[in-house]
Structures are given as C-alpha cells and as structure tokens.
C-alpha cells in the first residue's frame, strides 16, 4: 500500500505478538492498517483485550511492534525512542509524578525541551487556566481529587504542544457526572488546540458523542472505521452492530438479486424489504442476517396487513420513549422496538397485545456476519 503521503498518523500492517508464560502467544495487534488525519478526534473502540492500549503504546513508542510501521506526518518513527516523538500521553492511571507539585508536573515536559524558564512559566499558567486549575500550582498531586488529577495529566501532556495526544480511557475512573463534564471539556480542548486526539474507550456512547471518526476493534483487528453516524447506521459486521447501540438481528432470504436486492424477512408468512447488499457476494435463495435498530422497528397494533406477527412480552417506560420486547414465532431472541413517547405518554400498546412488526427499507442493514 503506497498511497501518496498525507499528514497524520499512518499505521501500516501492524502486528504485535506478546509471548506470555501462561497463554503462549497473544496477537494483540493483527495486521492493523489505518490512517488518523491531522487535527481529528479519533477514537479506538472495542471490548477489553482487543488491543486498544497496545496500539496506543506502539504509537507512543513504549512498545516495539513485531511487524509494521508507524508514520507521523510522513516520517517513519517506528524505531524512534519515545522521548524523541512529538507525541504525548494521558495515562489511564494518570502517572503524575508524586514528588512534584502540580506546576512542576506540568512544567516537566517544557523543561526537558529546554524551553526558556520565563516562557515555560507562562505556558504552565496558561495550561492550568485551560483545565481550570489556576490556584492549585503548589499542591502536591496526592492532595487532588480524581477529576483534578485527570486535568493535571491533561495539562501536563498538552503543555509541550505535541502534534498528537494519546488518551487511554482517561475518563474511566470518574463518576458519571464528572465524566459527562470532562467529555465536553475534552472535545472543547481538542477543537481549541487543533491537536490530533487518539482516544481509547470501551464505552460506545462516549465514542459516538465525542469522535470525528471511530475505529471499532476486536481481537487485534480493526473491523470498521467511520464517522459515528456511518458506524451506527451502517455497521458492516454483526459484532459492530451489536457492540454499538442496540440492534435486532433477523434471518432473511435473498429473493431477488439486484441493486437494491429484495429480501424476504422471517421464515413463514414474512414480508419483503429492499436493501443494498453490495459488500456481499450472494446468490438468490441464500440466507443473510438483517440488522435493524429498535428505534426504526415499528409496531402496528391493528394486527393485520404485512409484517411479522408477534406478541408483546414486556413494556418498559423510559420517559422520553418506551421499549417493547416482542416475541416472534421462529425467532430465538425477542425483538426490541423503541417508540418515542408523545407528551411523555406511552403509546397505547399493552403487554400481551398481538402486533405486526415492520421496518422501512432504509432501516435495514445486511450483515456479513
């Protein structure tokens, strides 16, 4: 792959194998290639152990890849020591220097870069203002709350004005309220500074709300890269659809090939939908899985007309909307429909009601499993 050089981070054919006493060989990164653009908020999302931290550590230089290259703005940094890379990290444990004050922590990177002391002093003050910690300069880091420590870590990493900021689940130790606040602050900081953020999380909501683009990872592989909307609306694999938001999975049969193709949903007495399946190489009659989001799954209480027939099992009121779990004959798991409440009233469908289930053509995503 020899694309014309573009600014940003290029990860090329990255493989990282750990040899472990108990587990033997672990492929923490399995042929990962991706391009993170300059100035973007890029998120690595995936379940525990999928290799997010490893990828971040390879970019920072703490981990030497078994194979593959890391390019930073066209410069191959694969063999560069961490202290030579214009990349700073906000560690999951914060890793603040406990024997130094807040100001000394933030100044450390500037000192190492031999920034003139007066300029460094100004920069420290500026950074502390940015993270709302002015007045805390002389505190020891052990005397700070979790949220404050997190902001010191952020200020310390931002002070040397790196090209890239790596953040490894920086919000995971914070409580819900603080976490929401910091999400907004981080996004603001990224937009104000224009620094490329590579953000690791296993919280899909966090990934969707903060990122310009998201890479979904599983077992050392990148499954899909796209904007939050692309990933949410057009997941390419069952794993992605399942990991990000809620999804109904339905078996279907391809009845007419074409663009779009026609699928018959359900086993008996089903109805047909049209959907694009260009990424699949399918023949007429082959079985596929369709993914439909609950908020695009419609219930018709009249109980006749086209659609899958089912019976409402449970109704859960959520304030803004109501969740229906509907049992459909021949399907293992109940389907979920999320219907928006009007004037905060739940729609008039009760438990035990017989309903017809339908969804519009453009709500359907054909998965390659």
């Amino acid at each position, binding site marked *: 792959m020899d694309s014309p050089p573009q600014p940003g981070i290029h990860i090329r054919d990255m493989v990282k194998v750990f040899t472990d006493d108990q587990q033997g060989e672990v492929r923490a990164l399995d042929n990962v290639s991706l391009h993170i653009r300059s100035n973007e908020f890029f998120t690595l999302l995936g379940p525990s152990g999928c290799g997010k931290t490893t990828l971040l550590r390879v970019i920072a230089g703490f981990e030497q890849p078994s194979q593959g290259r890391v390019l930073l703005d066209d410069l191959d940094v694969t063999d560069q020591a*961490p202290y030579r890379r214009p990349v700073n*990290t906000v*560690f999951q444990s914060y890793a603040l220097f406990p024997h130094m004050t807040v100001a000394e922590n933030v100044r450390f990177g500037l000192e190492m870069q031999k920034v003139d002391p007066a300029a460094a002093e100004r920069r420290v003050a500026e950074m502390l203002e940015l993270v709302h910690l002015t007045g805390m300069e002389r505190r020891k880091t052990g005397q700070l709350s979790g949220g404050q420590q997190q902001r010191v870590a952020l200020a310390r990493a931002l002070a040397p004005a790196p090209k890239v900021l790596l953040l490894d689940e920086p919000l995971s130790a914070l409580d819900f309220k603080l976490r929401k606040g910091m999400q907004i602050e981080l996004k603001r900081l990224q937009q104000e500074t224009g620094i490329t953020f590579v953000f690791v999380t296993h919280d899909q909501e966090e990934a969707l709300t903060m990122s310009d683009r998201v890479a979904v990872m599983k077992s050392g592989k990148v499954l899909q890269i796209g904007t939050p909307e692309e990933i949410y609306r057009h997941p390419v694999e069952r794993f992605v659809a399942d990991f990000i938001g809620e999804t109904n999975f339905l078996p279907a049969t391809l009845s007419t090939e074409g663009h779009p193709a026609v699928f018959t949903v359900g086993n008996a007495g089903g109805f047909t939908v049209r959907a694009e399946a260009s990424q699949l190489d399918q023949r007429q009659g082959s079985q596929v899985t369709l993914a439909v989001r609950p908020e695009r799954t419609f219930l018709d209480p009249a109980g006749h007309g086209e659609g899958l027939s089912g019976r409402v099992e449970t109704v859960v009121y959520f304030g803004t909307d109501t969740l229906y779990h509907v049992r459909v004959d021949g399907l293992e798991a109940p389907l979920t429909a999320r219907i928006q409440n009007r004037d905060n009233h739940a729609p008039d469908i009760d438990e035990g009601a017989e309903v017809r289930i339908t969804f519009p053509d453009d709500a359907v995503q054909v998965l390659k499993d």
Partner: protein
Amino acid sequence: MDIRRFPGTRPIAWLFFAYLYVPILILIVLSFNANRTATIWTGFSLDWYRAVLSNNDILSAAENSLIVAGAATLASTLLATLGAVGMARRRFKGQSAVSAVLALPLVVPEIVTAVATLLFFILVGLKLSLVTVIIAHTVFCIPFAYLPIRARIEGLDPSLGEAAADLYANELVAFRRITLPLLWPGILSGAILAFIISLDDFVITYFVAGPGATTLPIYIFGSIRMGISPEVNAISALMLFISILFVSLSHILGRVTNR
C-alpha cells in the same frame, strides 16, 4: 475469634518481652556501675565510659568498624540499587531464580559463608587486611540493602518512567529526576540496615580480618575472654545506642516520605 482474647496471652507477651530485653537492660545498668566487679552494684559512675573513650585500642577498633561499615554500606547499597532497578526494568527468563539467589545469603549459615569467603581469599591470593573485611561485608550486606529498595520499586507505578520518557526525558534524566527521588527512602533504609548489620558482624569478620583489622565486635570478644569487664558493658551500651539511633532514623525517614 480475636487472638488477644485468649486467656494468658497478656502474661506470655510480657514474659516474651522480659526475655528479650531484661539482659540488655542489665547490661546498660551495669555499664554505669562504680564497682570494678561487673556484677556487684555499688553506685553510679561514668568512669567506664571515660575509660572506653581514652582507650586507644578501643578507639582504633571503633575507627576500623566505622571504616568497614561505611565503605561496605556505600558499596553494597550502590550495587543493590543497580540490581533492584535492573530487576524491575524488564522481565526475563529465570528472574525468580535470580531473586531467590539474591536473598539466599540471608538463610545460609553465617559460619559457612565465613569459611567460604576465607577460602576464596586464600585461593585468589588476597592478603587478609581491612580491605578483605570490607569486601566480605559488602557481599553479605547486599541482600539487606536490596530488600527495602526492591520493595519500594515494586510499590512504584511503572507508567511513571514511561510518563517521563513521554515528556522527552531520556533514560538517564528520567532516572535522575523521577526514579531516584522516589526510590530515595528505600535506598536510605537499605543503607541503614546494611550499616547496622556490618557494624554488628562478628563471625565473618573474625575469619577474614588481617592483623591490625580488629573491629569492635572482635575487640569485645577478645577482652571478654579475660572476664566481663565494665568497660565491655560500656562499649556494648554505646553500640546499642548507635544501632537504635539508626533504626529510629530509618523508621522516621520511612514515615516522612511515605505520607
């Protein structure tokens, strides 16, 4: 059930402490005894301390002891620090075996070490002197210095070193600015422990000391063969005082820096 509630725990504890400390208490009291016969109390006096401090043999033995303990402490602490940092740096095959070997001198009978060390010096043709004592002390002080330093390293967040590297500090600077200051309390306790162990050592010193390399424990042993004198009591009390001073110092340092 709380073990403190068992009947008889309290008297047994008292007995235990009495057993440990009454002999030492008696020694200290008798070091202030006016009577030359060490075991008969006739009144308070500082004569024996005065005698100790004006006895040239004792003073030169004390000087030797301090030289040996000082040099051995410096050398063993330096080696122990390097060893502990190296062991923490990366995992390697047989690491636990190396760890065990490092702590082995703590359980090997001292007399065995003494004979082996002497044999070694003879084999390599080293003449016994104060230098051989320093070398021997350095060796057996290493595990004592190593353990507190290692414990301290294990308590450190390994990402601190990475954070330093991330912020453009090369290995040397990262060690000087981050690792060393954080290890300092461990290094000091290790050094103090090594110092006390060296100051107190008799068996190995007795084997490898050359002429003119008499240390305080050797001197005490030599003079006690002519009967327990109040002077010996006074030296012992002084050594005890120094040991307590150092242990307290190490304790206080640990407190202050572990906040």
